[in-house]
């Protein structure tokens, strides 16, 4: 009892101590010094822990990668501030408050999820902070509601129909199964695809399974012989791999058609599957080879969530650098303006990057791959 009382008291006073620390801790970063050294910070909002940490960590790694490369290239001193959202809007709100009240932060990468963007959009708009997402694809986000929002990926309302039409025209299924993973990203795509399938008179079996579930045998059993295509608009590639394994194990011949998240050479390797991705296979782009190599060496295998965030971070880096070059100190306003004016002739995504007034990526390309028996991703020329 005796020490315990004290221990508790100790803990509490430690809080106070830390609290005092906080006042000095945050907000510093000195914009005064920035003029000379071009020192400022970028915040990243991603699910760094929790059920989809696999996405968040990959995004973080590529952001760090882009930042270090750009810092050396542009002689800037930009630092990255982590904000863990666990793909949860409430946490995203808290993180966003942390960023907006930290004066040294002049731009934000993320958040990852569309529902998070909806939660934090107003806050960032009020703070005049530019934020660029590498994975929020809901169509509703770029209707002008969030003036400081940008994304380096296309929206569901473009990708969905495009994929659906390809399936209808090239794979001619009589019946197909489409499985969403109960996340905003997935349900959005499904909503965009369904009408087209129904129009084409295809019998659609719409299933839905939580991202956390890894047992698909009972859904796979529902794949009828007539069902020749299974559409998986998922975020977790290894889940799709397991789905494919279950198909094989139950001797089902249906072809998997996946979207962005499934693009993951080495993880998703089901022979004959299709993957439509907003990111290219950066390992196949000569210009990106070095990046890919570095990433692989530093963080191991990666999927399709890293490169877009790399691009997003790069856009912010360049914006800040340009502000510095013009002799001004990077402020939120100036960075925002510079991001709006972004015009990258080329990028890690294998296409030029510039934004519409609503913040969408101009003529965002899609890349469709077919996986062969060796697990290699072959680009299907569109």
């Amino acid at each position, binding site marked *: 009892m005796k020490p315990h009382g004290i221990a508790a*008291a100790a803990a509490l006073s430690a809080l106070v101590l830390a609290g005092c620390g906080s006042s000095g801790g945050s907000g510093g970063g000195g914009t005064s010094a920035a003029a000379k050294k071009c020192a400022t910070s970028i915040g990243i909002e991603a699910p760094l822990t929790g059920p989809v940490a696999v996405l968040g960590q990959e995004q973080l790694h590529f952001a760090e990668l882009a930042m270090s490369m750009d810092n050396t290239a542009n002689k800037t001193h930009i630092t990255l501030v982590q904000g863990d959202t666990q793909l*949860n809007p*409430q946490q995203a*709100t808290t993180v966003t408050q*942390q960023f907006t009240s930290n004066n040294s932060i002049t731009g934000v990468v993320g958040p990852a999820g*569309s529902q998070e963007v909806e939660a934090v959009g107003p806050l960032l708009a009020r703070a005049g902070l530019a934020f660029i997402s590498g994975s929020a694809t809901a169509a509703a986000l770029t209707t002008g509601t969030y003036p400081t929002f940008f994304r380096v990926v296309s929206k569901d309302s473009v990708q969905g129909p495009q994929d659906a039409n390809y399936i209808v025209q090239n794979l001619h299924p009589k019946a197909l199964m489409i499985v969403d993973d109960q996340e*905003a990203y997935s349900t959005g795509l499904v909503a965009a695809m369904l009408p087209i399938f129904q129009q084409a008179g295809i019998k659609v079996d719409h299933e839905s399974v939580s991202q956390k579930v890894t047992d698909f045998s009972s859904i796979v059993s529902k794949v009828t012989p007539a069902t020749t295509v299974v559409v998986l608009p998922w975020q977790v590639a290894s889940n799709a791999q397991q789905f494919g394994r279950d198909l094989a194990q139950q001797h089902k011949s249906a072809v998997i058609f996946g979207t962005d998240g499934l693009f993951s050479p080495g993880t998703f390797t089901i022979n004959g599957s299709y993957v439509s991705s907003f990111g290219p296979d950066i390992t196949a782009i000569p210009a990106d080879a070095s990046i890919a190599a570095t990433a692989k060496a530093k963080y191991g295998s990666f999927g399709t969530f890293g490169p877009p965030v790399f691009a997003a971070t790069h856009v912010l880096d360049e914006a800040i650098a340009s502000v510095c070059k013009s002799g001004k100190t990077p402020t939120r306003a100036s960075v925002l303006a510079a991001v709006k004016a972004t015009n990258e002739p080329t990028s890690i995504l294998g296409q030029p990057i510039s934004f519409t007034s609503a913040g969408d990526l101009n003529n965002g390309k899609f890349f469709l791959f077919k996986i062969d028996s060796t697990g290699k991703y072959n680009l299907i020329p569109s």
Partner: protein
Amino acid sequence: MSDEALPPPGPEHADLGAPQLAGPQVGADEWVARQAQRHEHLPSWLGAGQRAAERAGWWPRLALAAVAGLLLPVLGLGGFQLQVGIDALVIALLAVGLNIVVGSAGMLDLGYVAFFGFGAYGFALLSSAKIGTNGIHLSSVLSIPVVMIATGALGLLVGLPSRRLSGDYLAIVTLFFGEAFVEFTNNVSPGVLGGPNGIVGVDTIHAFGVQVSSNKAYYFLLVIVLVVTMAVLRLLDTSRTGRAWRAVREDPLAAAAMTIPVDRVKLMAFAFGATVAGLAGTIFAAQQISVFPTDFDTPILIIIYAGLILGGAGSIAGAATGALVVMVIYDGLLRSPTDSGYLFYGLILLALIAKLRPWRRLALVLAVTAALGFAAHAIASAIAASWVAGGPQSTGLIADALRDWVIVPANPQTAGNVGFVLLVCLLIALVQLKGGWRTILLVPTLYVASFTWETVLSPNPSVTRQLMIGAILIVMMNARPQGLLGTRRVEVAQ
């Protein structure tokens, strides 16, 4: 559950929680003596404070806390801190509500967060464009009470099983209910509930043309709501209703034999708890101007329970304090690497001061640790520069202090991982060992701790955040199982 299950009578038994007294003691005198002694084991200033607080009675204390809370923003609490404050206050409100069911009536309700969600969704539906052509934007003076009553009714419904189920069986059923709620909002009628996209564009709290929109406003609102709720619940707790709740917690069968309608009393507890959660939900939805299924998933429930039990289930003040502490640590300090650095080293130091006596030994340990550090650093740098190329990862004062002390290799990740595992093993060993060995082992442990922090923990703030909160929960529960402000209880297996 016959006689041997009962705790043995007073003199032998009353030492639960309180320290053993030297010399023979009997009956009441012993109890009285122990009450007096409760203060003596605290440092004088703390003891004095505690005595003063106890003399003051509950409402001056509450009022004082309220004033302090209201003053904080004036003293320049803003932006992020304000947001953390709001989150913390919401959780505190929930913890206080949960305390009715868990603390007073002694039922394990693992579906509580669903009432929070129900309140939030209820408010969102009543104050957004979701229902009807252009929505019903009901005035908050109406919508909030309506939602609260509805949530209370739901509480009654969910409480019904408590008439047949008890203990962990009730817990699991309520847990199912909570999970079912998330599944429901996520999958059922996306047209209205929005599925994973939730409901956006919720009105802020508005009545008679007055809009509560700024975070400061919500902070003040929440402080007031929390304090009022606590006062109300305190008054209720000291009334016949509160006594009935506790009687049912202690022994339902005896309670029934003493004219207490057990089932009705349990249902009341559920209803009151739910109502408070509903209230919290409305404010949450209005402040976030949006609601999503993930806002009401298990992690929130865990935080609420952590707060309640850390503070001391059964004590209203405890519930609120615990929730505030947990949230300030988890949502505030641990989010910033700098602050969590201060927290990390601060906690270690204070734990040492608290646990390590006499002072000579403490000084010795610190000195030896310091020496060890500088020596190790010198040797390492002598062997190869790359071994110390990294430099401390944490920022601010700490970094400067530790520059020539802690070894940080050029590529810290792997070394850090090893250090981390080693640290955990050392800590477990520390618990096992006794006396002198423990003191000796303390030195390397301290150094490894610092090493691990500087190499891997500090550079991965978001992972470290989760690790730290986990560790803090474990340590705090071990230090004070009855919670910060809770009183130790005897538990009779019924």
